[in-house]
Structures are given as C-alpha cells and as structure tokens.
C-alpha cells in the first residue's frame, strides 16, 4: 500500500481543522504517517490514533523553530527516506509551500501547490490565474509533494482507531548552517475573528469606507466573519496589510463574500472571485463588482451595513 506522510508543524494543544483535513485526505491515498515538529501533547496524540495514523515521526533536534524553513525541509526529507513514502502532504501556508519547495529539490520530487482535491491515481486539482482556470496536474517523479488548501476536505476519523508507532528521525547535520536565524519574534494581538484565508464568511471594505472600518467590523462580528480589505484601504493605512484581499494580498474562497465600498477592479477580483456567493454594496452603479455579484445593492454602505447588522442580531435573537 502506498505510504503517505503528513507534515504537521507545532500543533500545540489541539490539531487544527486543516491538519485533520490532511490526515483524512492522506488516508484516502494510502497508509498515513505523521512527521511532527514540536511537542506531542495528549489531545494531539489521541487525534492521530482516531484518524488512523500508522506512525508519528519526531526530530532528533529541538531547535528547528529557531530558523526559517531550511532545517524543517531537511528533517522532512530524512523522514520521507526513512518511511519510504510516495506522497507528502503539507498545508498551503507560505511556510508550508516553502518547505515543500525545498523538499522537492532535496528529493528530486515534483511539487504542486494550492491543491483542492487529489484523485486516487495522484492527479491533483487546483485553480490558476486567479481562479479563471481550473487545472489537473500530476507529479512525474517517484515522490509527490502536495500543498493542500484548507476547507476542501471534510475531516473524518478512521473506521477503527490505530495505535501509532513512535519513531525518531535524525535531522541531517549542518542543516542549520545555511539557514536564516530568527532573532526576535513578536506575537500580534489576536482579533478574535476567524482567519481570513480559511473563513466561511468574509466582509471586506474598500475606498468607500473613507477611513472608518466600523460598519464592516460590526457586520463581520454579527456574522462571525473575517474582515478583509481592498488594496486601496490597506495602502491608505485604514487597516493592517494582513487584511488585503487581491492579487498582491490573500486569495479567499469563502461561502459568502460581502464587498462594501470596493469598486471590484481586477486586482481585487483576483482574490475573491471563487467565493461561492458574492454580495456587493456600493454607491456607484457602474462599479465592476456588480458584474460578478449574486446580490448587489446600489446605496450608501453607512446606511445599509448597520441596518443589516441590526437585522441579523434581531433574527439571531
């Protein structure tokens, strides 16, 4: 049976939903083992058993977190060789993609990023050119490295739980020598809102907000949504750059995207046009966003958004 490795980096106290998705996808492709970096705590260990993981690999060295990606890629490459795996799954975060990139070179293995589904024969599906095309791609080397986007697989525990073996992988000597070292790290204050990239609902604001994100944030909180922004809004400094949706920001595919005061030029469209449902509110009837909106309101967002927020609160009681 084909062997699949899932790389999980510092899960902390509990596995993220995206990790459970990778374990579920892995199981559909073969016998799945985990390559872990960081502590293995009880709840995580229990989840591995529940998801039918055959083995959990841990690194011989503890200092991988002090460096950018290179030593993690070296560790993962050593694990792939030790396990004789044919497929490696990682999350689609910037770091996941970079580890995948370096792993690919180390193992002479093809890498496919932004994967949304994998067939039994290894064909990976993804969308390209800002969602305007969907493609199917295959890795032509013995080992395939795939980074998988969140929210495309429904997490499902195995039919019967497993008793994962524990194994240690020797991190190759010298793997930190040519790596950038992290000298300082500051946590940002958490917003309490869902992560923009994975959120089910996104409420985004643009130039039309004129510096006041209040109405967007209040609607987002009523819906349990993440807050996004156009480049105009982030460039103006009204909201952090992290919130930018678009070609030079994040690409999102939520169930619902509410666009407020954003004209919807191609730079913005590139980041959100794969959303399932798009709602747009804009004063300007000529805004391009109305060409792609499922429901459009020509009106003042400072009237429409607060009214909608109140109505949602009322209905949710």
């Amino acid at each position, binding site marked *: 049976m084909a062997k699949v490795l899932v790389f999980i980096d510092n899960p902390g106290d509990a596995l993220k939903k995206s990790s459970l998705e990778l374990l579920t996808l892995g199981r559909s492709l073969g016998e799945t083992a985990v390559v872990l970096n960081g502590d293995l705590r009880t709840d995580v260990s229990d989840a591995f058993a529940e998801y039918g993981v055959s083995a959990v690999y841990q690194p011989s060295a503890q200092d991988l977190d002090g460096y*950018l990606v*290179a030593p993690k890629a070296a560790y993962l490459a050593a694990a792939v060789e030790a396990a004789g795996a044919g497929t490696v799954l990682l999350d689609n975060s910037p770091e996941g*993609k*970079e580890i995948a*990139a*370096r792993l*690919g*070179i180390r193992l002479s293995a*093809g*890498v496919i990023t*932004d994967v949304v589904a994998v067939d039994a024969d290894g064909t990976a599906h993804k969308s390209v*050119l*800002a969602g305007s*095309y*969907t*493609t*199917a*791609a*295959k890795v*032509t*080397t013995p080992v395939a490295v795939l980074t998988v986007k969140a929210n495309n697989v429904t997490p499902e525990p195995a039919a019967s739980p497993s008793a994962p073996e524990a194994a240690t992988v020797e991190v190759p000597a010298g793997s930190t020598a*040519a*790596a*950038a*070292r*992290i*000298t300082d*790290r500051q946590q*940002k204050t*958490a917003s309490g809102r869902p*992560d923009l990239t994975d959120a089910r609902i996104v409420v985004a604001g643009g130039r039309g907000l004129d510096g006041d994100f209040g109405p967007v944030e209040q609607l987002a909180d009523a819906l349990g949504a993440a807050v996004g922004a156009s480049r105009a809004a982030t460039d103006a400094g009204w909201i952090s*750059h992290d919130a930018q949706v678009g070609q*030079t920001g994040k690409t999102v595919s939520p*169930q619902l995207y509410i666009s407020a005061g954003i004209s919807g030029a*191609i730079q913005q469209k*590139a980041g959100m*046009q*794969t959303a399932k*449902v*798009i*709602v747009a*509110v804009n004063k300007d*009837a000529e805004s391009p966003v109305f*060409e*792609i*909106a*499922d*429901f*459009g*309101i*020509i*009106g003042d967002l400072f*009237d429409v958004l*607060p*009214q*909608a*927020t109140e*109505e*949602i609160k009322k*209905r949710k009681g």
Partner: protein
Amino acid sequence: MEETLKIIVLVKHVPDAQFDRHLNGEGHTTDRDESILSELDEYALEAALQLAEARGGSKAGNQVIALSMGPAGAVNAVKKSLQMGATEGFHLTDDALAGSDAAATSLALAAAIRHIGTGAPVDLVLTGMASTDGETSLVPAQLAERLGLPQVTFASSLEVDGERLTARRDADTYSETVEASLPAVVSVTDQINEPRYPNFKGIIAAKRKSITTLSLADIGVDRSQVGRAGSWTTVTSAEERPPRTAGTIITDEGDAGIKLVDFLAAQKLL
C-alpha cells in the same frame, strides 16, 4: 564607505493582469502576448537600487544585475529594469525552456546565477514575493536550496551590514526579525518600498547599458534538464471557469439592509 555589493534581481515578464489571461497549447502554458514587468518584481529592483545607492552606487562599483528567463519578449522586463537604474541585464532564453515548472526554472536560474557570479561572486539574489501569473511562490526557496544559500522570504525591510543581512517579516499572527549571512536569496513584499518610475535620464542611459543573452549552452545546462522534459510536474488538463454572471441588483430605498439579510437567509448563509 561600506563594501560594494553585487546583486542579481530576478525579473519576470508576465501577462498583464489588467486584461483577461489565457492558458494555451498542449502544455497549458500561459499566453504572454500582452506582457509586462511583473509589478511585484519592481519592489525587489527598488530594494537592490537602494542598497547599491547607499554604498555609492555604480560609480563605487556596486552592481545591480537584472536577470530574466523567458522567450524573446522577456527582454522587455530587463529593459524596464535598466531604465529604473539596474547596471546591466542578462536574458536567459532558449526554446527548450518553454513549459518549465518551478523545479526546472530554478535549475536554469541557479546555473545562470553561478555563471554571472564567475570571477566575482554574487552577494545577494533578490526576487519579488510571487509572480503574478504562476503564483506558486516556489522558485525563491528552490533556488536557495539549489545554491545552498539561506533564504529569507517576504522581507518587509532589508538591511545589509558587512557579511550579514537583517530582515523583518510580517505574518498574520506575528512579526519577526531574521538574520542571515551573505550570499543569500531574499524575496521582498510590496510593503518594503515605493518603486521609482524610470525618468527621462534613466530611459536614455538604459540604451547604453549592456544586455547579455544567455543560452542553455552558455550556462552549462542540457536541454533535457529543463522545459517540459525536465519538469517534475505536468499539467494534464485545463478548463476555463465559466465567468460569473451578475445576479439581482437593487437600489437602496431605505430597506436594503433588511433585503440583504433576507437574501442571506434564503441562501442559508445566516
């Protein structure tokens, strides 16, 4: 005066994202008829120019070299870079490169960088945060792995002091400072600077700057190592997504907020 730097900036010519973009042919590759210098690469070039200028610029012996890989049109990305202030350009072009994936691209670029570094080694390789067409972001990391160099991606600030660089990186949940020794591969974000526009003087000066064309033979790469033959992935099918169509558009008559919520309820999105 600080030591001079030899910096290579990777520049890519990409289809203009302001227009519709298409995949063509057997290999499902990008149509590059309407191509421009990737906007994100301008930030890398600006970062290189600022590092060079802080050390006395080209007069003091600093080099900012624009390197582009691609068909004939890719030379336009190099020309634009020279107009902005790069000191010289290289254009790696060969029919066999067509259809290269990230692995094959990084192999060819690594060989070209070694070639350009013959005699006087390169201190820094700078790239944009992503290409605006392929969007895989794999090439900088793969290049670093192939060259055995530290990689610093998504730098929102970059300083070089002697043989060390310091950069700031901003993730969603944290900001960090990283250090690496030179030479290194660094990708920069669109937050790092405000790229300059080429001025008239720059446009005239660019005409006298040299652009060297490199073939695979020049950099010692065999045709079988690149292109679709040398790639480790293959695109088996590509389908254009049907364009979105407009739905219901209403004008606010004082109750549009309520109608919005009605719509969400009907779509089971509440």
